[in-house]
């Protein structure tokens, strides 16, 4: 292929978008985080934008509601990610074992929630968590168990459940596809060596789809750190979820409720740095394990 011009034409639309909706906004966020509105005198006169250095960062990092939101999202990741990866991988291994019946029906059923938009998944589960509407709560009540899904200790697991429900099947399909790509000779050798089906799944198949596990973990992590839709919806019904429940909600609240752009920008940059650091950590950790 020769023509440089053709290459440029094919790439131009995407890179135009990359600049307009990615590079410039990231730059703007960083820039905004170092500037703030300064009210001259006694609050009279026009507002001026002045360089405030790290003031916004200090304000964010010393704000207990922000630290709480970070803690919440870390806790959420610690519950959600292992459950998701282990759950999806287990289901894929079971379906791949050749014993499961009605395999393609099971796959379709498991995948279905992924076609349900996040806000609607949250709506469905909100109703299933709401006393009076929920058949689940009624069922528990018949067994004399009173359960409040939106209480102080249960609200985070309830959110994890919504996310798990939405994405389990999607990740299962990725793992299943990767398992199908494992050469059958490798597996046959393992059977000859006398490995039982469980040992075969855990010791041989799972390590062979390591690349898929890393990919799924990374995407799940990036997605989980953005936690917004589910808590925002539950916020309408549960006093346990504040307007600054997760870092993304904190950013939204700072920017559009309090109109403090410097604070919102600093929180955005911190969330971005945190995401990049964690993703980098996951890659490094898995690479080192692979080297062993």
């Amino acid at each position, binding site marked *: 292929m020769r023509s440089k011009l053709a290459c440029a034409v094919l790439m131009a639309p995407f890179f135009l978008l*990359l600049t307009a909706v990615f590079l410039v906004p990231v730059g703007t966020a960083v820039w905004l985080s170092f500037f703030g509105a300064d009210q001259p005198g006694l609050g009279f006169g026009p507002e001026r934008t002045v360089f405030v250095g790290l003031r916004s960062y200090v304000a964010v990092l010393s704000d207990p509601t922000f630290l709480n939101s970070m803690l919440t999202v870390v806790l959420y990741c610690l519950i959600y990610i292992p459950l998701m990866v282990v759950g999806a991988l287990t289901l894929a291994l079971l379906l791949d074992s050749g014993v499961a019946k009605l395999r393609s029906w099971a796959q379709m059923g498991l995948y279905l929630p992924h076609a349900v938009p996040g806000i609607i998944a949250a709506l469905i589960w909100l109703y299933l968590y709401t006393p009076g509407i929920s058949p689940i709560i009624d069922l528990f009540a018949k067994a004399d168990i009173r359960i409040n899904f939106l209480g102080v200790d249960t609200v985070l697991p309830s959110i994890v459940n919504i996310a798990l429900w939405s994405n389990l099947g999607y990740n299962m399909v990725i793992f299943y596809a990767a398992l199908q790509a494992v050469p059958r000779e490798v597996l046959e050798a393992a059977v000859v060596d006398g490995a039982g089906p469980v040992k075969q799944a855990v010791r041989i198949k799972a390590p062979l789809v390591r690349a898929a596990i890393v990919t799924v973990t990374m995407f799940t992590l990036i997605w989980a750190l953005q936690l917004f839709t589910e808590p925002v919806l539950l916020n309408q019904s549960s006093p346990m979820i504040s307007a600054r429940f997760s870092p993304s909600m904190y950013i*939204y609240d700072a920017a559009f409720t309090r109109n403090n752009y410097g604070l919102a920008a600093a929180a955005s940059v911190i969330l971005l740095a945190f*995401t990049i650091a964690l993703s980098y950590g996951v890659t490094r950790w898995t690479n080192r394990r692979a080297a062993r």
Partner: protein
Amino acid sequence: MTLLGRTTVNLVVGISVLYTLLPVLWLLLAATKNVDALFQSDLLSLGDFSFTDNVKNLFAMDKGLYSRWYLNSVLYAVVGAAASAFISVACGYAFDKYSFRHKEKLFGLVLAAVMVPQTVLALPLYLMASEAGLVNTFWAVFIPVLFNPFGVYLGRIFSQGYVPDEVLEAARIDGAGDLATYFRVALRMLGPGVVTVFLFQLTAIWNNFFLPMVMLSDQKLYPVSLGLYQWNSAASVSPEYYPVVITGSLLAVLPLILAFQLLQRFWRAGLTAGAVK
């Protein structure tokens, strides 16, 4: 495998399928109930069948806003995903077939963009749109969703897999220009890849909630997701909104399920390409 093992496997898979299906079934049944029956949570009683009433109410509520939202969602999602798929796949193809300086560094930048949370970009995007006078317009939601770096990554993989260099060389010898070759020959071979990227982006845009929430204040521009969110907040005060929100949710789920059913073989191929590398 032992009988016990077989039973356990099928039991675990069966319970998992029930876990994923029952909430959707609940939505289906709840959409046939009026407010009173809904609050008695007597889902299986056949005495009350208000589905047609619910649909009528849904489209009549607030002067027919729902059909407006639905149309908006279709427009944002179908047109946006189609444009986005062509833009991303073209770029991925160029990354595969051309060589130029700093190519891999540039590709690294594309991959880095996949990692950046949407919520980080929302405030600066809002301020930029506000500067350009685009806040609270169709374009404020439509333009950012065209950006799909993961689509470029998939496009490059599909291009490697589906478009042999010999075919391009043959076209060149025939005297076809590079762009003509792309549009007449390569794009046809990339068809399944374009469909996969389209489907992923269709889902993403149909799901889009944060960006419209930030950008739009005019209810008439809302997509379904944001509209239902708003109606749900109204439901805590006036319960007649509950059946409307539930029925509206059900109708909003259908197009994606349909799209996934019809285009199954494409997205399966796409998922494999993304995961196995």
